[in-house]
């Protein structure tokens, strides 16, 4: 029996998940970003807050992901990239991403995706050209991978809201954290 492809696993996991209205998600997220812009005047601070919020989501979401998708541990960073793109993106956003632009040392890759349910009805105003609207996604990926002992940097490099042709997130592995033995109480 051949192992099901990641695509199939992703679709099966997506089918098992509860659905929520896309409009409700887009509106809730949009209101949240607007409020952050009012609270923090600088756009760079808003980007940082979105990343931090995403990180808090990611550290919890990873458990839901592992429990529902039943994926076993990944044996390489490339495998991790494929799982994020084909299974995690599908399960939580309903879209699949493509993994491209690997660096020579195989420690950095890009996730490309066209559809983004968070930004379906959004148009960025002229006052915030530097805003990465969906930066929460970068935080989620970073938080989730940290729980799996991988320290990564994760940033948007292209966003359709900014006029680019597609959405691109660049993920870079900084270090693998080793398992710590329990502290001895002597």
């Amino acid at each position, binding site marked *: 029996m051949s192992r099901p492809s990641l695509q199939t696993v992703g679709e099966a996991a997506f089918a098992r998940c509860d659905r929520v209205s896309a409009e409700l998600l887009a509106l809730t997220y949009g209101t949240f970003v607007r409020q952050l812009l009012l609270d923090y005047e600088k756009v760079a601070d808003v980007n940082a807050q979105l990343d931090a919020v995403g990180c808090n989501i990611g550290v919890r979401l990873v*458990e839901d992901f592992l429990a529902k998708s039943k994926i076993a*541990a990944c044996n390489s960073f490339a495998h991790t990239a494929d799982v994020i793109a084909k299974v995690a993106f599908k399960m939580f956003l309903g879209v699949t991403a493509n993994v491209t632009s690997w660096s020579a040392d195989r420690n950095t890759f890009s996730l490309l995706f066209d559809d983004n349910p968070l930004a379906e009805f959004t148009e960025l105003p002229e006052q915030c050209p530097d805003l990465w609207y969906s930066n929460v996604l970068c935080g989620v990926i970073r938080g989730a991978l940290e729980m799996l002992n991988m320290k990564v940097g994760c940033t948007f490099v292209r966003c359709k809201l900014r006029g680019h042709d597609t959405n691109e997130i660049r993920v870079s592995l900084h270090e693998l954290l080793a398992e710590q033995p329990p502290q001895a109480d002597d």
Partner: protein
Amino acid sequence: MAVYCFYLFDRTGTCLCYYEWNRSRSLQDASDDQKNMFGMLFALRNFSVKLSPDPAKGVPTFFVTDVYALHYFETPTGLRFVLITSHDCGSVDVTRHLTDIYAEVYVEYAIKNPLYVKGSKIDYELFLSKLDSYVRSLPCF
């Protein structure tokens, strides 16, 4: 056939949950017992992986002694689920129940509870009662 107790540890060794159904030897000191259990599991896991022809599949699923059976499941995020039963229940089927406890009890009632601080002891009635009723429904209980 009986289920004695359940432990849940995170990767730092903190015992997030200890639940007891049946245990003749009462605990002198719960935190000592939990530290010893985590230490033993850590050593057991490394020992077991070292001896495995395939290190990716070397993590123990269960072991049996003359008196009890210990079933073990760990997640890639470092959570360790442990169920201690009587020795006649020792089987990989019981270990599979631990994956259900992860998906249906821990993720649903701890992780998705916004008031729960990750890495702290899970003291929520709903979580504990779901855990209790799930384990009581098992055929080995």
